[in-house]
């Protein structure tokens, strides 16, 4: 299992004006741990995820992989990032080999896309593309799984089922997960630990371990209690209207 320790991670962007997005982030993630990074947009969540993904080259600070770097990374990006000229099935097989075809079909069925294997991404709704991207990430059986708002634009019921699929995959395969989300309820329902990036400071302002046992019932009132406590700590964590907006998109 792959753990990672981030130390003093700094990142600034210079266009259009200098902006320090991350200003000394320290964060350790244990092997097989499920960590949710929460906070409203503009606090550097995605930047931190891109650094872990190895896609950002402009940062400073130390990244240690005590058990060696991950062999199989996977991600669900904010956009689906499917290849438009490949069918859904070929999109999945792009990240695996031909032998993975039965498993790819299984996963497409698991994200409720059975029958759309031959469709091109442009023929599908945004929500369907997003689910295909989730299936692609799970196909490689990653040891590091990075999820950037993977379930926005799915309707409430569908998001719930995909959350259950994700939780189930994590319980059985134990990848190390970093989930970036603005949805506190989702974070608490899935993660072992919720990490809050402070507003404006570019640092971790709160880490809270979620002691509820897995598998969790999303309607568990204890989840709501934790969400309320987190909101008391940082009221900006509530982004009014986000949920209804997500439903309208789907």
């Amino acid at each position, binding site marked *: 299992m792959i753990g990672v320790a981030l130390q003093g991670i700094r990142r600034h962007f210079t266009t259009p004006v200098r902006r320090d997005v991350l200003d000394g982030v320290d964060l350790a993630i244990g092997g097989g741990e499920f960590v949710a990074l929460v906070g409203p947009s503009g606090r550097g969540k995605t930047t931190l995820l891109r650094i872990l993904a190895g*896609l950002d080259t402009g940062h400073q600070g130390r990244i240690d992989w005590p058990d060696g770097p991950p062999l199989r990374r*996977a*991600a669900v990006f904010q956009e689906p*990032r499917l290849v438009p*000229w*490949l069918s859904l099935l070929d999109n999945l097989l*792009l990240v695996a080999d031909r032998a993975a075809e039965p498993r790819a079909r299984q996963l497409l069925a698991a994200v409720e896309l059975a029958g759309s294997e031959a469709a091109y991404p*442009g023929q599908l709704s945004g929500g369907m593309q997003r689910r295909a991207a989730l299936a*692609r990430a799970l196909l*490689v059986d990653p040891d590091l799984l990075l999820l950037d708002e993977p379930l926005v634009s799915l309707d409430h019921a569908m998001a719930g089922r995909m959350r259950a699929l994700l939780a189930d995959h994590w319980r059985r395969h134990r990848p190390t997960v970093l989930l970036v989300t603005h949805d506190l309820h989702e974070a608490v329902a899935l993660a072992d630990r919720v990490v809050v990036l402070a507003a404006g400071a570019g640092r971790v302002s709160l880490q809270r371990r979620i002691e509820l046992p897995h598998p969790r019932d999303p309607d568990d009132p204890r989840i709501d209690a934790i969400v309320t406590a987190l909101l008391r700590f940082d009221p900006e964590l509530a982004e009014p209207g986000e949920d209804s907006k997500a439903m309208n998109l789907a």
Partner: protein
Amino acid sequence: MVAEAGPAALATPAGRRWRWLLSLAILAALWQVAAMLADSAALPPPAAVAAAAWQHLVDGDLLRDVAITLARVAVAFAAAMLIGSVVGFALGRSRVLDELFDGWLVIALNMPALVTIVLCYIWFGLNEAAAVVAVAVNKAPLVVAITREGARTLDRSLLEMAQLFAIPRGRVLRRIVLPQLAPSLMAAARSGLALTWKIVLVVELLGRPNGVGFQIRSFFNFFDIAGILAYTLVFIAVILAIEACILKPLDRAAGRWRTP
């Protein structure tokens, strides 16, 4: 394609073809009228040109010369496309290379074809290799320029996705990069084909003992206008056939995923 439906869409392709034929017929009619008015050997009427084409076809020299010229076009075209697209891709993906060689490319793009041809014949001798090199060198810069534009605009988000999932390089090239370059490569191929055969004729005229360009020079010496026009029209027809039978279907196959 089944993408369009409705009476208007059904009428369009056939109607367009008729209008195209009609415009060709008008051109031929104008030519006929001009020839009658001029009444000179310098402008033979369409029928005389057709007769000349038939005669050269029966004699066998037309087919032989067209075949020889086509072979030169094919080799030079393939070499220019291959070298031009590789270099263009490299320049489009590397800022350092682009800055180093941009000036070279500008010079190459503005080099007159005639100069390249003459220099190649002087340096490499009046032989087949010099002829083909001269044509390829003329055409390659254009391929470089077009492919470079295509390579510059590759979708970064897909390349990042490929990097994150550690997709093998060959597969990234085949399934992510080349399909994005396909429109540029097709544009380079189509503009290049017309350019190539025009330059091949000049190369043949200046230093080859056969081919369409050589024949046009002999016709010129004998003031055989009908022969010149016959050869030209046949060769244009061949090039249009290649365009319609090879390049267009390729283009359509590359864009198939866009049809919903």
